[in-house]
């Protein structure tokens, strides 16, 4: 990240206008009031915004954006603030726009298999409301209890069910969004089939708040699977677990869950959740499937047998849904649990083609050793999506520099294998330095032209995603 000049100090006239739009209670300006909005879940990035607004309807969002374009100050949209790429940090000052007070579930339709929600509804609230009607909202990012649905759309959040169910983009049917110039547009619709116009829904999905502010989301739901089964296999090494993953997928099994943790993650999670995991194993593979009872039983049998063949030290099954849920919950908190190891946890998000997973894991180990950093790795094995996490103490000399140098190597290694620098967390401010290497100059230039078509004044989350 570069040190960015802050050029936008809001005038009293602008602040008065903002107060008029959202109401004085929904405008924060004092140092203390904006301080909590100076950072999100990304370590090492912090910048105090000039002001924070918490709009309560689309009209307010529109009026604030129109004012921003007119007066020329940045607006940074924010949901639950759980992103890991510094997407909501106000590097250039301006106004952080918090959408958590727009948090109504408008509709859950069993007939149409869809839900319509305001942007600030959390992923878990949507999933629970759908489940109450026997429906499944499939995307389930690790931060689902905190993250908002619109935030998931803006980052195209992934999660633990990617292999079988895909990611957020596969479920967004339509959006209401406000352009930086204030116009309210509706992209897509309530229809599964609708190809009128460019697919702006997909363009906004993963746009990291640089093109428009999402004010309503229509998502597709699925019938709730009859049952869920989960198992755990322990291996001597992550590479062995990677081999098992390749074999499982090679069999034509498409499981709902295929997650792995290395030894450091196993111990951190066990410290946090006390599930009785084998602390001595080199790697843990969490496998699971959902669907009709017989399908789940067969699927788990095949995966367990495959793990045995590859040389698993032990294979166990969750006895019931409660135990399954506990295992999934433990996996979801891998990252924060690793925080127990050192004050700073830097998490990365490289993805490689599935058959190269074991090789990437080896490469990460080698790089970590070369740079003398403590690296724990977990991730979505079924998606080839790895989360190598380096933990360090900021007071330990050049620990931070070594961590950054190691990750630079990891990113290039992933790209050399045909992979990417981020599978599901996004670019934000944190991953900018590697964008050109990943996308190439021509594509970056096109990206900027797209940005200026949406945002001629360049006010919406400026600087993020290479804009």
């Amino acid at each position, binding site marked *: 990240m*570069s*040190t960015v000049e802050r050029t936008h100090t809001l005038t009293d006239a602008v602040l008065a206008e903002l107060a008029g739009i959202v109401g004085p209670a929904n405008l924060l300006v004092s140092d203390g009031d904006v301080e909590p909005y100076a950072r999100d879940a990304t370590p090492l990035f912090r910048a105090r915004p000039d002001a924070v607004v918490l709009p309560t309807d689309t009209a307010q969002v529109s009026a604030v954006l129109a004012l921003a374009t007119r007066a020329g100050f940045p607006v940074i949209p924010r949901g639950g*603030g759980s992103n890991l790429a510094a997407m909501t940090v106000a590097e250039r000052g301006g106004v952080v726009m918090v959408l958590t007070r727009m948090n109504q579930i408008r509709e859950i339709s069993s007939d149409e298999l869809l839900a319509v929600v305001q942007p600030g509804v959390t992923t878990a609230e949507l999933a629970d409301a759908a489940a109450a009607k026997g429906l499944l909202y499939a995307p389930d990012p690790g931060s689902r209890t905190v993250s908002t649905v619109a935030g998931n759309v803006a980052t195209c959040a992934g999660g633990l069910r990617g292999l079988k169910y895909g990611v957020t983009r596969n479920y967004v049917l339509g959006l209401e969004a406000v352009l930086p110039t204030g116009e309210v547009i509706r992209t897509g619709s309530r229809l599964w089939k609708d190809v009128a116009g460019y697919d702006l829904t997909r363009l906004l999905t993963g746009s990291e708040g640089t093109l428009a502010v999402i004010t309503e989301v229509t998502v597709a739901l699925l019938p709730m699977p009859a049952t869920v089964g989960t198992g755990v296999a322990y291996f001597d090494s992550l590479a062995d677990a990677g081999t098992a993953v390749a074999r499982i997928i090679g069999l034509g099994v498409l499981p709902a869950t295929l997650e792995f943790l290395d030894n450091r993650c196993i111990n951190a999670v066990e410290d946090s959740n006390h599930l009785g995991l084998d602390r001595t194993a080199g790697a843990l593979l969490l496998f699971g499937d959902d669907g009709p009872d017989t399908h789940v039983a067969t699927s788990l049998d095949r995966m367990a047998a495959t793990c045995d063949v590859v040389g698993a030290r032990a294979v166990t099954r969750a006895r019931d849904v409660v135990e399954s849920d506990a295992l999934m919950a433990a996996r979801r908190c891998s990252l924060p649990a690793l925080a127990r190891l050192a004050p700073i946890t830097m998490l990365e998000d490289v993805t490689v083609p599935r058959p190269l997973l074991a090789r990437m894991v080896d490469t990460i180990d080698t790089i970590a050793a070369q740079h003398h950093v403590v690296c724990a790795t977990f991730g979505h094995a079924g998606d080839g999506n790895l989360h190598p996490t380096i933990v360090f103490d900021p007071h330990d000399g050049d620990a931070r520099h070594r961590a950054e140098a190691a990750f630079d190597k990891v990113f290039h290694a992933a790209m050399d294998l045909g992979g990417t620098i981020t599978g599901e967390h996004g670019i934000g401010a944190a991953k900018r330095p590697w964008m050109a290497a990943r996308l190439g100059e021509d594509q970056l230039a096109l990206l900027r032209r797209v940005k200026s078509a949406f945002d001629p004044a360049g006010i919406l989350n400026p600087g993020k995603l290479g804009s």
Partner: protein
Amino acid sequence: MSAEPSSGAAAPATTTPPPPPTDETPTRRGIFDPALLDACISCGFCLPVCPTYTLTHDERSSPRGRITLMRALETGRLDDDDPTLQEQASFCLGCRACESVCPAGVQYGHLLEQWRDHQWRGRHVPPIALAARAGVRVTPAITAAGRLRRAARQTGAARPDATAHLMLGCAERALFPTISRSVLRLLPPGVVDVPSGQGCCGALHAHNGASHEAETLAEELGRRMPGTILTTAGGCGAHLASVLGRQRVQELSEFLLAYWSEHPDAEPDLGEIRVDGRRARIGLQESCHLRNGMGVSAPARELIARVADYVELPSAGSCCGSAGTYSVLRPQDSRRVLQTHLDEVEAADLDYLVTVNVVCHRQMIGGLRRSRSRTRAIHLAELLAQAAGRSTPDTRD
């Protein structure tokens, strides 16, 4: 966006970017224990369980946001007098629900105590907090109040052969004396004693910006009552446990379950609680410090289910808004937090709502009375004593 000052896009592919400006290694003022403050990684897992975040959906009043504020105070980015610091240190209920879901193991309760120690000094101490701290400091006054109200009679110096020493609690013995009397009716004579000269445990001080005095008071009480201390209030119990060690403290519900299971003959013949000729419908309002501080949650439910139909309320485990002195310091916010619980009680059409902590008990009695509910708040000890047929519950103080 040609204004981009130094887009990484232009950087050579293998160059490590320069480190961003950071406040992870700044000078510290020493207000907070650095290890405690460093433990939070701002993942935000705490947001959905925080009662004040749920009310506001505003990061300022979330545990993560408050830790960001503490860090700003610690590093001098914000002054002691900053109004947001003052407001948020006071708006927090201190329920510690955030700790129960924190994968990083952040000890928020201790951080809050250190924050209030610093924040609530000099002119910034809320007068009511000051009065409350002073009021419970006077052991003879507490003793007199307890006697006057006929709380369990004190039995002299702590007996070494007692399985546990019953702690009377300052507010409880004055306001709800039947609770301690009920406890004695649930156990064979001599199993617990009630040592004389008990002072305040200091929980109230810990939550109101005087954690040093809080520790001294707990240690004093620990000396007067050597061995296991039995408490009927989660707030007192969690504080004592944090100072004296968890193994020194037993809360009533966990104690009864364990004792009765080890000594089946000692268990009184618990009958059924009946209302209008049918088995009663009974819910629970947990104590935050019992649940989040001592990790005791299931035993009260199990005990209620032995004597009535237990009804799980959606918010049974979240703060009712009483929060020590909070309901006195911030009555409006306290009632906003309480309202959800009252609504759930009405929707569930309960006969009784069981409490396991004195301030929650007082909060629920007041709330249910104001909303003209038919449901009665009753402490777990009183309910069980009623089921044992040895006492008439007196839920109205």
